[in-house]
């Protein structure tokens, strides 16, 4: 069975094709804002301009006739961006006369992570620009055990990066700066129950910049504080649920310090830590294709009339038959 998946929730327009055993093709085109953060309409404009080219590259590698299902990211995400992906998917499904499958974006991150790493029943830390969640399976659904009360961790890092005039995306640059940090400066550490908040750290980091503190030390303290909050809640969920696997997914998962911290936490509690290859951590079409394939195998498909986008689509809404 071969599934094609379209991802377009935010910054990336990406198309992947997978079989049950491997990723056959993955092509994409990232939107880079000229200034400031991601502008939903500009990003959507970008996606609509590149969609044809990206698909053409896919069909150089895959014969359209081989495709058994067309999956697309139905949400959560930016409405205008989601609509481009959904429109392309509908058109393709009709043209190829194959079933259409609407996939939850967060679920897709978790499922491709499990597929590529072999993690069976992990507590997943999903960290990206817009999302920061601790997710685990309970019964027939995934549930969110902790999440950000305000902005996603990626968004928080980007805001700080823009303030010190680093180019988009700010994550890798801030990570490089942090490696040269020497001194820890106290930052607001906000964990309430199982939830956390990052906006206080951003504001504080900006203030420290204005006061002339060393940028490297600020970046270092920013990362150490924010990541410790994420690791703490992840560990708590593992202890509470008695799970012995931890999976890291989402674009911010590429950060090596975050990986190191989660790895240490797992070692100390005799748990196993998993992280998929970087290429499959951030938003990509292969994760949508793979999750679509799982859904298809379990008889799930999305009627055209039900294929509207869901910007607030929660992972808990999806029943998991596998």
């Amino acid at each position, binding site marked *: 069975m071969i599934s094609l998946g379209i991802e377009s929730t935010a910054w990336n327009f990406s198309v992947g094709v997978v079989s049950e055993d491997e990723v056959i093709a993955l092509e994409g085109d990232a939107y880079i804002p000229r200034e400031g953060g991601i502008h939903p309409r500009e990003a959507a404009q970008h996606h609509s301009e590149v969609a044809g080219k990206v698909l053409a590259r896919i069909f150089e590698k895959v014969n359209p006739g081989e495709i058994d299902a067309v999956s697309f990211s139905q949400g959560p995400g930016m409405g205008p961006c989601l609509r481009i992906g959904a429109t392309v998917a509908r058109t393709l499904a009709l043209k190829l006369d194959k079933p259409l499958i609407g996939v939850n974006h967060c679920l897709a991150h978790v499922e491709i992570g499990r597929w590529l790493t072999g993690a069976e029943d992990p507590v997943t830390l999903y960290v990206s620009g817009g999302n920061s969640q601790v997710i685990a399976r309970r019964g027939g659904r995934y549930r969110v055990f902790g999440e950000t009360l305000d902005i996603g961790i990626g968004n928080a890092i980007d805001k700080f990066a823009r303030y010190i005039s680093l180019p988009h995306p700010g994550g890798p640059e801030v990570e490089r700066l942090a490696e040269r940090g020497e001194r820890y400066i106290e930052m607001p550490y906000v964990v309430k129950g199982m939830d956390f908040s990052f906006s206080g750290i951003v504001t504080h980091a900006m203030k420290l910049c204005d006061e002339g503190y060393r940028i490297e030390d600020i970046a270092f303290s920013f990362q150490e504080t924010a990541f410790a909050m994420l*690791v703490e809640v992840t560990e708590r969920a593992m202890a509470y649920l008695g799970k012995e696997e931890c999976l890291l997914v989402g674009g911010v998962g590429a950060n090596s310090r975050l990986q190191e911290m989660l790895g240490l936490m797992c070692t100390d509690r005799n748990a196993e830590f998993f992280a998929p290859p970087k290429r499959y951590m951030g938003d990509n079409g292969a994760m949508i294709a793979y999750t679509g394939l799982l859904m298809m195998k379990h008889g799930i498909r999305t009627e055209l009339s039900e294929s509207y*986008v869901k910007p607030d689509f929660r992972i808990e809404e999806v029943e998991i038959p596998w």
Partner: protein
Amino acid sequence: MVKVIMGGEAEVRIHDSFVEKIRIRKRYRIKELDDFLRRRRTISEARIISNARKHGVATPVILDVDDCRIVMERIDGEPVREIMNRDVSREIGKGVAKLHSAGIVHGDLTPMNMILKNGRIYFIDFGLSYYDERVEAKGVDIHVFYEALKADFDNWGELWEAFLEGYSEYGKFSHVLERFREIEMRGRYVDKSENRS
């Protein structure tokens, strides 16, 4: 004889007449942050335990606090999980009403963290507690208890009802209950009529 329990955040050593709670070092955090958090939380937990008692909630007496260690009285009673019934659940509700009136959000309201002694419910673990006046935090607090009841007891429906009878002593009861219902809806069913395109 000492019984040692490893929690997510702390090691609990149960002696004959007292209990030690030691916040252990987390290697994933840098030392400065780790020391700061463990000290701050130890102090904060000790204060909340005392403050809760001042507001009429049964808690262990604090015997000593130093660095990252709290020494407290051992409550020798029956674990609530083993003797749960409507009356016990109602008493828990009254206790939570007092905590919330004092601005304390417990953060981990499960029967595992409660002991019945001489007809009183003792709340023994405030490791995840904090002060918060928001209705949301309190709604989440009682939702944790609701989930714990559902997971552990077949008659969770009547236990929950009894809990609410006790909890109704809290002045903002109806607000919190309303928020609880919203929290319960989240992630279960979301109106799909919007955002059609």
